[in-house]
């Protein structure tokens, strides 16, 4: 029999394997070997990612370091995205010329709204490039498909470049000022209704009406140019949606309000989650029924029934790991999707590498690293230039 200390030591040593692989991946996808500011920025970002993954892996506080990553990921996305827009089309606003030219980036939220039409008529009801662009239709569709197979709704806590905003604002206050831990069922399922409504209305009007009228992130991405009353009204809705759903409500409730109640893509991913490899499991015997996970879950995915009966959070679970970190009984863990009940993890320190608690953060973080490497180093470079007074 190995002593506990010895087991821990071996576990630490074994974990060097995923760490080394992750370092390679970070180096490979993030480091820009050209000299100058870009190289410095890419090294800073690469080291930051290495530190975060090491902390996730060795401290077992996956949720905390994922959260730090996720917020910074979202904040770093927007400056580069906006500068890219200005470079390619001369402005941040979306004009009719951009629509004619299919210069509108294809964001993942529009996938569920357009995918049915695409399957039926091979036509996309959104003016984006088909290929040859980082945010082209085929590029986003393939990334979405790959991510969904591995993570399912985990997209929303590991890959979504919008979610970090809410994650950030929901953490600004220590106290919950508005308690919606146990919301009425209608509120919990509102985003499914939203999805159905958007798919139907968009199908009938042949227009992605979410982007036209409801997107809360227009304010920080590409607002439409105000040319008439319609665009004026839409802009007011965008501003209200951003401040209401992304700033105020998350701040008051400490929940990712927009993601869990409003976002049609979130609802869609909850459905797609059935095909993913991983999910979160609760060992109902170990569980002390304290309800802390209900309070901590940012997406309203925990209910009493989850830890008393089903042994899993709802399908809306984004695999953020907050409940895992916070559960003092150690009853919650990452698991494989097909398992009906939580299984005790192997005590063999070598087998730990094959456990979902290592494999899920490892896979998810690879997606995060690769996707963020296309913009985060540029944002760091911009910040460095700004600090040295180099931006004109």
């Amino acid at each position, binding site marked *: 029999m190995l002593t506990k200390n010895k087991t821990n030591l071996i576990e630490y040593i074994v974990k060097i394997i995923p760490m080394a692989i992750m370092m390679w991946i970070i180096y*490979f996808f993030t480091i820009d070997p050209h000299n100058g500011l870009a190289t410095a920025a890419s090294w800073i970002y690469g080291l930051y990612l290495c530190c975060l993954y090491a902390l996730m892996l060795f401290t077992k506080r996956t949720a905390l370091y994922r959260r730090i990553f996720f917020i910074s990921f979202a904040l770093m996305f927007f400056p580069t995205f906006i500068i890219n827009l200005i470079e390619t089309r001369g402005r941040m606003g979306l004009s009719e010329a951009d629509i004619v030219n299919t210069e509108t980036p294809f964001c993942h939220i529009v996938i569920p709204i357009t995918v049915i039409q695409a399957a039926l008529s091979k*036509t*996309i009801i959104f003016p984006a490039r088909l290929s*040859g662009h980082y945010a082209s239709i085929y590029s986003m569709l393939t990334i979405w498909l790959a991510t969904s197979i591995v993570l399912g709704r985990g997209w929303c806590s590991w890959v979504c470049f919008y979610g970090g905003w809410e994650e950030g604002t929901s953490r600004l206050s220590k106290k919950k000022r508005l308690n919606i831990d146990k919301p009425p069922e209608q509120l919990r399922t509102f985003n499914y209704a939203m999805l159905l409504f958007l798919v139907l209305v968009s199908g009938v009007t*042949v227009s992605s009406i979410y982007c036209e009228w409801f997107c809360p992130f227009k304010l920080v991405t590409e607002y439409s140019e105000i040319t008439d009353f319609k665009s004026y009204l839409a802009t007011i809705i965008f501003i209200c949606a951003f401040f209401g759903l992304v700033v105020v409500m998350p701040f008051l409730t400490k929940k990712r309000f927009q993601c869990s109640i409003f976002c049609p893509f979130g609802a869609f991913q909850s459905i797609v989650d059935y095909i993913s490899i991983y999910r979160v499991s609760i060992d109902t015997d170990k569980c002390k029924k304290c309800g802390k996970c209900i309070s901590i879950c940012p997406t309203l995915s925990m209910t009493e029934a989850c830890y008393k009966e089903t042994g899993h959070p709802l399908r809306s679970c984004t695999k953020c790991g907050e409940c895992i970190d916070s559960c003092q009984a150690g009853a919650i863990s990452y698991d494989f999707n097909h398992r009906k009940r939580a299984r005790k993890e192997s005590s063999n320190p070598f087998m730990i590498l*094959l456990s979902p608690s290592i494999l899920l953060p490892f896979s998810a973080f690879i997606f995060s690293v690769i996707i963020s490497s296309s913009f985060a180093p540029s944002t760091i470079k911009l910040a460095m230039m700004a600090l040295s007074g180099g931006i004109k």
Partner: protein
Amino acid sequence: MKKVRNIITVLLAVVAAASIPYFFINQESIISYLQRVFPLKVDERYTGGDISAEFIDPYGDDNGDGSLSYPAYEQWSTEGTLDLLKFTIHKPVTDGKWTSLRVFQQLDLCLAGFSNPLSGAAGFSNPVINIYIDIDGSAGGSTKTAKSRAELVSFSPLAPWDFVVSINGFSQKADLSSFDGSYHSSVMVYSSPSENSIYIRLPLEKNGLLPIMDGRKVSYYVVVGAYSQLAQGNFMNIKTRGSSRLRPRVFDYLSPDGVDQHKMLSSWNETSRSYAELKPVTWDPAQSESNSIANEELEKLKNLAEKELQSQPSKKLGEISQENLKGTALLIEYFNYSYFKEAESEADKILSEEPENAIALAYKGSITAMNGGKASSVIDSVNLVQKAYEIFDKTEEVAVTDEEKLTLYMNRGNVSKSIPESVFLKSLSGAKDFERAAQIFQTMDGENSSKAASALINAGECYIRAGKNTAAEVCFIKASSISSLSAADRYKLALRGFIQTAPSN
């Protein structure tokens, strides 16, 4: 059973994790496969409607009757800004999306150059463009220009115009008016500098333009002039000594097939004091407007290209050694005859004596990238390609002469064109390299013009990889206007519909 399932799941999870980086590295191939098996298109109600007809105008004919040259002001002298390359007519849209118009017909104008030094509201400063539209054949309309003494041309009495759209870069709205003044409204003008294009959408409701929807024959006269705020109709009067007062103020005109622009624009008559008379291009929805080349012509071009390939000389290694070449000449010879190992050692030899030899550096960059293609692991291959770009960066710092720059642009362009776009995102910079190379080739003489054409075709292919189709077309049109094309390039352009016939000899 449960155990087997668990093992399969674990295996699947491990394979999935390991495949993620490979998925991103090979994303471009996955996308091109998907595009073949599941082709998608963007709903045309956003993009302005399916294309109904495209008229290509030659590149470099922006000299009116042959005697006009660009205004001397610095802001107006940007090459190609007055050179119309393509006029596209879209099918009418009856339910426009994300636009202020519901029923419209979109017309696109693609120019060889684009600039906005005076910050025109529509995104460009020069030119001024009038599109005259005849929707009822010879029945009614005018043969005179919308503003008298503006363009100094007249129009065919067989197709007198009924409507005119007057576009300039200083207003986001173009004027749309009928020949008799009974209709007058404005049309939004959109432009895309990256695609060298101007778009207008003709409102078909309430403007008398609704008959276009019937699918009838419509004729268009497109005339391009240099913009002047003060000139009549905004068409600048370029005076040259001895030029006739009847000489049209039109730099480029969309001439129909078989019509010589120079001849047509010089057809004014001093005796009768009549202006040059223009013929329109005609869009007949009842006929197929296919630009595509006949199969037998294409076959002919293919054979010629194959013959050209077979006739390419090859040299044995020994023959090259006997040639007494030295230094970069030897390196280039090795490289051109695909003796890359020898080329690499020659490059290394030159660089050990002369580390800043731009030509050796450029070839070293290409060979390093090629080695990347042959590397056994993906990581090695990416590292080698990145190293190649470091070498190219160094080359850029030391390249001074045209020859050195040309060598850099061609080598770097070729590498950018051949590496996976999803990993390196180099297609756009490759296109720019080829365009710069073409510019240098064009300043040289002799057989270099055919090299310029090849470079332009390569630039176009890079633009297509980057999703910039109109920018690619600009390159193809420019290439097809070059007379001394190689058979291979002629075939490539024919496949894309930019050349319709094989050379007669």
